[in-house]
């Protein structure tokens, strides 16, 4: 079963009296374990698409099925539940909680999910922080970390609960090239070792080179869908 299925998804925003169509009919299937980028000019609707996929927003029409659940049927609470357990987010602006240490920021995410013993959670947090290369920096607050380090915390936070899907919106936009490389390596490692599905939205060509599947979005529609092996799929 595919992880994610979008059929005829549209999204129209109301801006005062004007209707703004952000997505105009998306059909998409994503399999477990993909490392996929979505690219396109700003305003093309790729952020909206990402939000749809991330269960952060509901489509105006069409269906989205995530892990066998139809999103349209879920309440806000249901969506929150879904996100909590299955999806990790990495945003351009990190959005770390400034009063918490790196450790606590990551712990936060796994605590929300619950269902694990304290010791287990502690182990997982320490492990993921080590994996992203932040061993020894657990007790630093975001104010004491560099941009790259903060993004790594964000990644650790996204990954600590071992979600099915990780969505990253421009994760390298605020990083220098060396740090970007490092961060991408980590994500690739996670993808290969844990089988976590990664979907990126990005301009950054470096990210594109890592991806095995590339989706182009223009004017609210998918206009290109190429795989690493060169094969194209029509939409």
């Amino acid at each position, binding site marked *: 079963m595919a992880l994610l299925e979008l059929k005829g998804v549209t999204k129209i925003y109301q801006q005062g009296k004007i209707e703004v169509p952000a997505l105009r009919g998306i059909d998409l299937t994503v399999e477990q374990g993909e490392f996929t980028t979505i690219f396109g000019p700003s305003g093309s609707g790729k952020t909206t698409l990402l939000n749809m996929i991330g269960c952060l927003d509901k489509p105006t029409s069409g269906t989205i099925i995530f892990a066998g659940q139809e999103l349209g049927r879920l309440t806000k609470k249901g969506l929150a539940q879904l996100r*909590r357990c299955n999806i990790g987010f990495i945003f351009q602006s990190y959005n770390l909680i400034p*009063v918490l240490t790196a450790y606590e920021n990551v712990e936060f995410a796994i605590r929300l999910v619950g269902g694990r013993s304290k010791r287990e959670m502690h182990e997982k947090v320490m492990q993921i922080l080590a994996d992203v290369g932040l061993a020894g920096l657990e007790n630093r607050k975001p104010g004491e970390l560099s941009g790259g380090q903060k993004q790594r915390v964000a990644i650790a936070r996204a990954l600590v609960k071992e979600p099915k899907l990780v969505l990253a919106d421009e994760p390298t936009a605020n990083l220098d090239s060396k740090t970007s490389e490092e961060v991408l390596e980590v994500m690739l490692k996670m993808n290969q070792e844990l089988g976590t599905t990664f979907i990126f939205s990005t301009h950054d060509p470096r990210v594109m080179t890592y991806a095995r599947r590339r989706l182009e979005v223009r004017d609210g529609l998918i206009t290109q869908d190429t795989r690493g092996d060169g094969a194209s799929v029509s939409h």
Partner: protein
Amino acid sequence: MGRVFLTKLALKNLLRHRNRTLITAIIIAFAIFYYIFLDSLIDGMTQLSYQTLIDYETGHLQVVTASYWEEEQELPLDNLIGLDEQILTAIRAVPGYLGSSPELAFRAMLSNGVNELPVVGKGIIPDHFGQVFAFAGQYVDGTIFQLGQYQAVLGQRLADLMQLEVGDYITLLVRDRNKTFNTIDVEVAGLVHTSNPNVNSNYVYLPLDLVQQALNTDGQVSKIIVKLANAKAAKRVAGELAGVLQTSDPRLQVYAWDDLEAVTVARAKQAANGLILVIILIIAAIAIINTVILAALERMGEIGMMKALGMQTKEVVYTFVLESVGIGIIGGLIGMLLGAVGIWALNLSGLDYGAWFDLDMASYGIPIIGKIYGAWNPHSFVLVFGFGVLVSLLASILPAYWAADKDPVKAIYHR
């Protein structure tokens, strides 16, 4: 989501924004301090005014006929009480009895030969009077008279107004039972100054036998004033005594000092205190709401992320509310501390109201002269502290919901 975790988060947020937390807390602290201080001051004033009444005018109980009580304004010479042994025995038998003073009150024109002034005269028995009232140390000049002597005692203020000194002679023009004019000529034997303005400016004290003779009311008095060991027991004792007295004379009634109009008016003034409470706490509520909204706006990104990660709205609200309660508690503690310091300072030297404002407090219906001290009311502290915390909690709920309910997407990209 663990309550403990959320609580820790709330605490950390409070510490992070130390300035904002402190400023809001201080606003609340001042509101609470103001209430505590004012409450203490008003209570101090009220207690002083009660004491002034009790010590110089009303004692704890007054035994009168019910009809006299109703007409007391007029100071009539009807419906008086005869000094029966039966009545006096019953009075002396009440629990906590310390003394009783019979009194015959009447209206008179005080004349010094040149000017006339309307006053209230009181015929008293000096040693009984001394048992009930606190005049002993209040003599500015001279002393009290004895029964049978043609002498009087009045307030220094009144004497000054009429340019009288100890040893001068005065005439009191009175009307007896039949409204016939009579005069009482006496020598000024003593001048007093007390904290009760009525005593100082309006009353003239004379020997009871002299008064009874001049008014043709032999053997009778307007009322018998009783002093008890315990002021709080007055109402209860009054009821019991009235029951006993009415078996011998059904006209009799006994009134406790807290039945008096002046006292109930003072209590009404305390209700106005509650109004101040409302106003003060509106201020606190506004401060809290302001703080929550500011904090929320600043933390929009975090809130969005937390919701994206799957945190529920109510959990986000919980953190904000908890922070506000924390501010309320801090503010409350500071406020109580300031309040305690304020009352302590007030009690050190007292507030001389009259001196500050050059007012005659009597014209405000409050019979006090002299210093006001603060009263300690632990229950006021607890009340206003609890109230402050409650308001902090309630005031934060709506703005917290406003912040927490935002769409995670919008919140994350909120700039």
